[in-house]
């Protein structure tokens, strides 16, 4: 079990160094086992530095930089051991527009690489416009949800008259 954990750390870090650069347009990130020599009881620390900035602890990064770093880690773990489905619930909420578009490009890249099916819950107009198809959830009757398949136009109005 120790060997397997160390092995997966190496693989995840290999993915992470690529993915972090894709999401941030540069910089570097790494996961390290700390607090113990035995991987089975050690903790996992995250080191990240956006492009042009010094390597620092996570708490100094901004809200959006932390969210993007978290996404890079999730996707690195995912690509190390891909599964048939990936579900993301408003992971783009803290991101600005340029990070949202980098996030969408990465999704496209993962879909072609792994044939994974994605379900993506979002409020971002830009993310919506990059989807292959959209489902709208409405509560025409308060407290009762209905699911309808919508096109981008309707989704836009769904956002407006909510």
């Amino acid at each position, binding site marked *: 079990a120790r060997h397997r*954990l160390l092995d997966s750390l190496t693989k995840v870090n290999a993915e992470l160094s690529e993915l972090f650069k894709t999401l941030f347009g540069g910089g570097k990130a790494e996961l390290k086992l700390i607090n113990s020599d035995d991987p089975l009881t050690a903790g996992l620390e995250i080191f990240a530095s956006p492009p042009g900035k010094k390597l620092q602890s996570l708490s100094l990064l901004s809200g959006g930089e932390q969210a993007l770093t978290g996404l890079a880690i999730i996707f690195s773990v995912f690509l190390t051991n891909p599964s048939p489905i990936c579900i993301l619930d408003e992971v783009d909420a803290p991101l600005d527009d340029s990070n949202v578009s980098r996030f969408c490009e990465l999704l496209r890249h993962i879909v072609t690489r792994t044939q994974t099916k*994605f379900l993506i819950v979002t409020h971002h107009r830009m993310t919506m416009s990059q989807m292959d198809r959209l489902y709208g959830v409405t509560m025409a009757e308060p407290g009762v949800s209905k699911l309808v398949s919508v096109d981008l136009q309707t989704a836009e109005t*769904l956002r407006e008259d909510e």
Partner: protein
Amino acid sequence: MFRHLRLAGFKSFADTAELDIEPGLTGIVGPNGCGKSNIVEALQWVMGETSAKQMRSNEMDDVIFSGTSSKAARNLAEISLILDNEQKKAPSEYNDRDEIEIARKIVRGKGTNYRINNRPARARDVQLLFADSATGARSAGIVSQGRIGAIIGAKPDERRTLLEEAA
């Protein structure tokens, strides 16, 4: 693998709702509180989630539609997930068909039960079926709302489970 989800009586979905899970990127949109995260939880639930807390609930009965000012509460919630099995990669006893249907039902006060292709099954059987394909209710690929913030804010020894998932 994943093809189609059907939910009835689960959380805010009083009536039956159907969702095709197709290749590529499927967006789920709608106003605050309309039921988007409930769909994510429906998928985790049918894949064998046993903790009510993961369902943002105090007890598992809380996932059954609890009624509104104009609609009575339900006593039953049921979710069914259809998987594609054309490549016959599932455990051998399910390979007699091109599809596998996993169903989970809960009746208020009476507990929950599972069925695979309409035959009774245990939570364990369902969980194993998904574990074999590197997925499941707690898979790293299912990122519920607020989970990224929780990973960043967690203590280092709480994050080790992420690596275990990749192994």
